[in-house]
């Protein structure tokens, strides 16, 4: 069965420090992987995706994610966190049947 795990409910990081939000997946076949961000009282916004090609994917707002096939991971990263990055982050995987599976979300707090 397809699934996504986000092992951390909450991540705190100081402003200006690098941040990582972790995601591991389980999917049959080639994975299609996504990161979304949700600001308070808003819907989800697309950040980036991995379909094929380079393992390092760059997305919106300076975020990037690294696809690691051997570790079945797709961690979200940013070199220097901003207070405005504080939000809820969701990792998702799509299976070959067009259905998406989301993780439980990680709440990121960037401390000024």
């Amino acid at each position, binding site marked *: 069965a397809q699934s996504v795990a*986000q092992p951390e*409910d909450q991540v705190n990081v100081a402003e200006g420090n690098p941040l990582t939000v972790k995601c591991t997946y389980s999917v049959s076949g080639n994975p*299609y992987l*996504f990161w*979304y961000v949700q600001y308070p*009282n*808003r*819907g*989800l*916004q*697309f950040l980036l*995706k991995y*379909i094929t090609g380079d393992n390092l994917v760059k997305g919106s707002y300076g975020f990037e994610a690294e696809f690691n096939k051997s570790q079945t991971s797709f961690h979200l990263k940013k070199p220097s966190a901003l207070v405005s990055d504080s939000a809820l982050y*969701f990792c*998702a995987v*799509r299976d070959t049947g*067009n*259905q*998406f*599976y*989301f*993780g*439980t*979300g990680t709440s990121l707090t960037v401390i000024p």
Partner: protein
Amino acid sequence: DVKVTQSSRYLVKRTGEKVFLECVQDMDHENMFWYRQDPGLGLRLIYFSYDVKMKEKGDIPEGYSVSREKKERFSLILESASTNQTSMYLCASRNPQRGTDTQYFGPGTRLTVL
């Protein structure tokens, strides 16, 4: 820009009422989805639709039904609302063509069932 709108941001209903949640997208997307979002559970798929008049059950369809009579509109129906259906409901649409794999989400409807 793709725009996905949902008919209400906040909704309060009573147990047993029939509830309609409407979602409209303006980009001619074939696929549309309904999720519910609960703390600690993430997003769970209720129903999705590949195209007009087509629907597929997701992971948690019990207590819900859907309607897609027109391509741009996907409705979620709670036939008899219950308190355990209090949740945030998110609609999404997607163009399944290769290279445009992204789902676009509406702002959500926070439903409270009393």
